[in-house]
């Protein structure tokens, strides 16, 4: 078989070597962080060191709450469970874990690029009482589109409401600065930055009143019961730090992505590349090939050893087309032909060429078919 080319880093990334070392080291400790004896105290130190690392990576204030969770999904759930009762506003392009967290979520409209319009958001905010929480993704997992978080925060705070930002896809790809963004809460996930699966975090300012989903044991300040995922937390701290330190690598990743897109447009000038005209993550490209279903494309790609995705991993396997694209007003016909490419620093020019060669073949077959018809 041909060499494998992995271009699905928004789904997950391999564990970084340094994070792996930290994971294994923590597994060897063999203590429960809540125990008071020697092994317990060593384990506690690992957890607290990682908490400090995460705080520094996103520049959260010293006073902020940093709560380790089992994943980004749980962090989002914890955020939306805060201070009851509260109005929750979120756009339809949000992750399923946000949209599914409650059944009374009010939808914020987005434009054709998937960006939140401040006008409609202002209208929504001025309607209800002041105890609202606006949950917004910093970067979309499918299109990579970046929201103007600072503008949103300014508006929302004017109404005395709070902002939760889901920064799961943004961390490690763009600068994520809790203080500069001015958000009230932020969700993170380790495995999207080369950390281990099974750990995430919610960061909240000291003023946010959180309510636990999992009770008992008193861990994480009583906000998240259960023995800490020691090795996961250790790996998360290391991976997040590296991801931040290596943020400059994203320039090269962006060059690869831009090269890929320009080549696609050379092959097929009228190709739709979603949200291409607005600020996006440097590593993500969501591309429609009219007339060829996403499934057909990803299967052909897989046969050639190229791993891409038809959308978010969470929703893949269910033959629904992208809810993100639907919210952007993209027709289902087009949405069903979309394929997501997401790169990382480990990808090379050669990887891009492999993708392009399969893409070109598929495109030409399709053109011949439609010409023959």
């Amino acid at each position, binding site marked *: 078989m041909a060499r*494998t080319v*992995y271009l*699905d880093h928004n*789904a997950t990334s*391999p*564990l970084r070597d340094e994070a*792996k070392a930290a*994971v*294994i080291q923590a*597994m*060897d400790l*063999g*203590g*429960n962080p*809540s*125990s*008071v*004896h*020697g*092994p*317990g105290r060593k384990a506690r130190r690992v957890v607290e060191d990682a908490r400090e690392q995460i705080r520094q990576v996103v520049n959260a204030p010293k006073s902020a709450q940093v709560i380790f969770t*089992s*994943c*980004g*999904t*749980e962090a989002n*759930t914890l955020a939306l469970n805060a201070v009851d009762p509260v109005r929750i506003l979120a756009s339809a392009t949000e992750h399923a*874990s946000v949209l*599914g*967290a409650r059944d009374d979520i009010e939808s914020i409209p987005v434009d054709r690029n998937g960006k939140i319009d401040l006008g409609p958001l202002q209208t929504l905010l001025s309607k209800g009482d002041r105890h609202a929480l606006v949950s917004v993704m910093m970067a979309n997992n499918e299109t990579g589109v970046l929201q103007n978080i600072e503008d949103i925060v300014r508006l929302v705070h004017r109404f005395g409401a709070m902002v939760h930002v889901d920064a799961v896809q943004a961390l490690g790809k763009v600068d994520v600065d809790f203080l500069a963004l001015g958000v009230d809460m932020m969700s993170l*996930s380790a*495995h999207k930055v080369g950390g281990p*699966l*099974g750990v995430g975090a919610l960061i909240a300012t000291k003023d946010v009143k959180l309510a636990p*989903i*999992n*009770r*008992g*044991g*008193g861990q994480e300040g009583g906000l998240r*019961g*259960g*023995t*800490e*995922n*020691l*090795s*996961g937390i250790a790996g998360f701290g290391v991976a997040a730090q590296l991801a931040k330190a290596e943020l400059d690598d994203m320039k090269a990743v962006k060059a690869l992505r831009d090269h890929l897109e320009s080549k696609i447009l050379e092959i097929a000038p009228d190709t739709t590349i979603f949200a291409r005209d607005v600020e996006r993550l440097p590593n993500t490209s969501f591309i429609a090939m009219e007339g060829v279903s996403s499934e057909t494309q990803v299967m052909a*790609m*897989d046969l050639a050893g*190229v*791993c*891409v*995705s038809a959308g*978010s*991993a*969470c*929703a*893949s396997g*269910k033959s629904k087309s992208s809810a993100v694209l639907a919210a952007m007003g993209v027709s289902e016909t087009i949405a069903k032909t979309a394929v997501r490419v997401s790169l990382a620093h480990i990808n090379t020019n050669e990887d891009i060429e492999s993708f392009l060669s399969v893409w070109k073949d598929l495109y030409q077959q399709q053109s011949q078919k439609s010409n023959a018809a």
Partner: protein
Amino acid sequence: MTATHWTQNNPLYLDYQATTPTDKRVVEAMAPYWTEKFGNPHSRNHHFGWEAEDAVEIAREHVSQLIGASPKEVIFTSGATEANNLALKGVAKFYGDKKNHIITCVTEHKCVLETCRALQQDGFDVTYLHVKENGLIDLDDLKAAITDKTLIVSIMAVNNEIGVIQPLKEIGQICRDNKVFFHTDAAQAVGKITLDVEDMNIDLMSISGHKMYGPMGIGALFVRRRPRVRLVPLIHGGGQERGMRSGTLPTPLVVGFGKACEIALKEMGAEAARLRGFQERLFEGLKERIPEIYLNGDLESRIPGNLNISFSYVEGEGLMMGIKDLGVSSGSACTSASLEPSYVLRALGVEEELAHTSLRLGLGRFTTEDDIDYAIERISKEVNRLRELSPLWDMAQAGVDIKSIKWAEH
């Protein structure tokens, strides 16, 4: 290596109920899934995803085999605490408009008790059964507590502090006869004693990875399919785990957990027999060297890897300080930072003074006979030393009834 190398910085680990060291075989099984097989198990578009998904399903099979369930009945969670929360809140939310009574027990793990308290605030009635002096519930109390409003009975399989095994089969039968769901927190039991969800009529069972030589951050909830138990999820999202628990499954942790279950299924019998011998050696050794010690909880209906002993006339903190080369606990890890006496021991009717001087000794897979002898030596030496310094011990030896002393108030 001689046993004398244990130090404060490198203590002899005897706290297997707090957590267990991860078995090397488990770490080996996990390793490929960190790097070369790193796929997201929910990626359905390429072989990295399929490979990860296959590994997850094999692990699910191993977990289910260990408890006599079908793989489809195993829902992975982040640990037993989440499983307990999901079982109780999930069932309560789904069936709450029909039945609103929950029965549990005063010696349950904090996460069950706190979840029940939260449900009380939501309008549920909760009966907290008392336990007998040996730590076991009275089955007649259970029968008497069940009403036509009773939705679920939650009784832990093995207590985390005193290691006693509740009569699961009998509880299961009572629940089934009364058409009440039976949930058991089996975090301390799975992989230690034989459990069979069919034979025991268990409807929901919480399992922890790190209490059975697997990794931290992973556990499972068994949810019976026939007759079906339904629940409202705590975490919504991508709809993983049959919609009962969303979030990307952590493949390496799941694989490690599965491996731990596979090992336990094979080795549990021999391991239990070995630990039973150690348990006896430890208890007898301590009894021989230290007069007036008390075992908390039943000795017979108890996992072999646990002893919980109170030493009278010794101050608990002082004892712990004196044996820093032993990694032991005075109670559960979750409450060990507080100086409160154990609520579990109090529930057994242990006097406060004795509850303050208890040690939980947890033995496990990597405990050796030398370790046992070392622990006997160290504990007995320290207890006897502290007693020599104790005026109360002197008086007791002289025949004074300590309880008759009227202490001056100050």
